[in-house]
């Protein structure tokens, strides 16, 4: 009887042990599953924010490249008025700047494509397209990167050797291709982004100077044409006057008073200061977004929770500023400052707001060609 009781008790203990073991196993599996799912979700968030940041970076370089074109045309216009002959050396320097910017835009686009691949990878198993985009990024980062530096070495540490900087990235991408591992993919992306972030930060003053130069050139030309009475600058003030219920006596003809024209030229210059601020902020916000993306990726690698809200905010701010700068682009195939708008000389792409058909950019405005013909 005693032996039977002991056997039963031992059996209960064993069952209890088994139950505990099974429960522990289930918990372990569940925790692992949840961790894996969280990991995958975070990777998707990272991929989304990285995609936005890289795409905006590409747009930023694209905008700068467009601005170099604008500068070149405005310089040709000014030089002609100033009696400065065409200069092949200057043209070569412009081309060099242009090539450097286009190369960086291409690199940023490839980075965006790789974030898209990371997103795919975090959604389902690695596919051929994933490897393919990393291959392209590898090629993009190992090619030669034309210079665009302009930065004091003391302020930023050693000057950047772009090729050396990206050579380690190519190694990461190659090893990731073999494993198709999410952590490794993020690690590879972090290496790439670190290099790009460093490059962007060091070159930002040189990049910002392009936007500033474009604003200055437009301001100088506008001021000159206003003073020569070649443009009607009244629209610069029209919005303000409308606001207090005043109407211009002769809104369709340039002011004849020299002092008024000088004052209107000052309005242009004041606006140029604002525009320079926009241009500088766009670059700075983008740098903030890249830094935050990098920090989020590092947290991911350390298995810490991530938030991408700040990154998205910074990217949206940079995109918005780029949009504002883009809207101030001078229209192509039109004589400079031919049209003026309620938003002023620098908003030449805007239509007259009081025209019923004009609510968007000038090229979308059907009435524009009739109302403001060349």
């Amino acid at each position: 009887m005693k032996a039977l009781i002991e056997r039963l008790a031992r059996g209960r203990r064993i069952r209890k042990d088994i139950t505990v073991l099974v429960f522990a196993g289930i918990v372990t599996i569940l925790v692992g599953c949840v961790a894996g799912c969280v990991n995958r979700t975070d990777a998707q968030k990272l991929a989304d924010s990285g995609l936005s940041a890289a795409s905006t970076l590409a747009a930023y370089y694209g905008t700068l490249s467009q601005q170099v074109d604008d500068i070149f045309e405005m310089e040709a216009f000014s030089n002609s008025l100033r009696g400065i002959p065409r200069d092949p050396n200057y043209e070569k320097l412009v081309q060099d700047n242009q090539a450097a910017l286009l190369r960086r835009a291409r690199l940023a686009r490839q980075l965006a494509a790789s974030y898209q691949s990371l997103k795919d990878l975090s959604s389902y198993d690695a596919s051929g397209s994933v490897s393919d985009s990393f291959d392209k990024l590898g090629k993009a980062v190992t090619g030669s990167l034309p210079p665009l530096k302009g930065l004091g070495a003391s302020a930023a540490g050693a000057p950047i050797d772009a090729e050396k900087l990206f050579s380690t990235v190519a190694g990461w991408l190659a090893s990731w291709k073999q494993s198709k591992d999410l952590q490794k993919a993020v690690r590879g992306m972090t290496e790439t982004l670190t290099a790009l972030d460093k490059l962007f930060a060091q070159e930002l003053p040189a990049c910002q100077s392009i936007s500033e130069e474009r604003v200055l050139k437009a301001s100088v030309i506008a001021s000159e044409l206003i003073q020569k009475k070649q443009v009607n600058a009244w629209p610069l003030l029209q919005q303000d006057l409308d606001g207090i219920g005043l109407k211009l006596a002769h809104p369709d003809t340039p002011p004849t008073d020299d002092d008024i024209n000088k004052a209107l030229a000052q309005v242009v210059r004041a606006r140029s200061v604002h525009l320079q601020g926009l241009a500088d902020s766009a670059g700075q916000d983008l740098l903030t977004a890249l830094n935050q993306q990098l920090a989020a990726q590092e947290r991911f690698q350390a298995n810490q929770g991530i938030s991408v809200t700040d990154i998205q905010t910074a990217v949206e701010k940079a995109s918005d500023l780029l949009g504002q700068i883009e809207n101030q682009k001078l229209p192509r195939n039109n004589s400079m400052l031919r049209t003026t708008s309620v938003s002023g000389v620098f908003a030449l792409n805007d239509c007259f707001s009081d025209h019923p058909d004009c609510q968007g950019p000038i090229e979308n405005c059907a009435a524009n060609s009739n109302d403001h013909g060349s």
Partner: protein
Amino acid sequence: MRTSRRYRLLASTTLDTLKSLYFFLDENFEDLLNDCTNDNQRQQLRHDYVVVRDGFYQARNLVFNDDDPVVSTLSTRLADAQKQMQSMLSNLKDIVQMLNLVTDAVNLASRLVVLGAP
């Protein structure tokens, strides 16, 4: 988390100084040209503008060591020259003096550009 890899906007003293000179000449070119009294002066101004503009474009592709004593000295002298030009421009009486000041500044800028590393 390491902070050494976070990059912030770093002002480039040398590039900024060269940019200021170029922008100053571009912005005030017409006024200065109108004050010139003969073709030699006008030609001098045009020449100086082209030199400083091209120098600035070159500088965008160069790296400057702002800690270098020669770079630092030239940058400071160039910044001082610009202050003088700005001050003189507000009450311009002697265009010859102004143009000489501009030429000196442009020469300083050219010497700075030569010191940039590719």
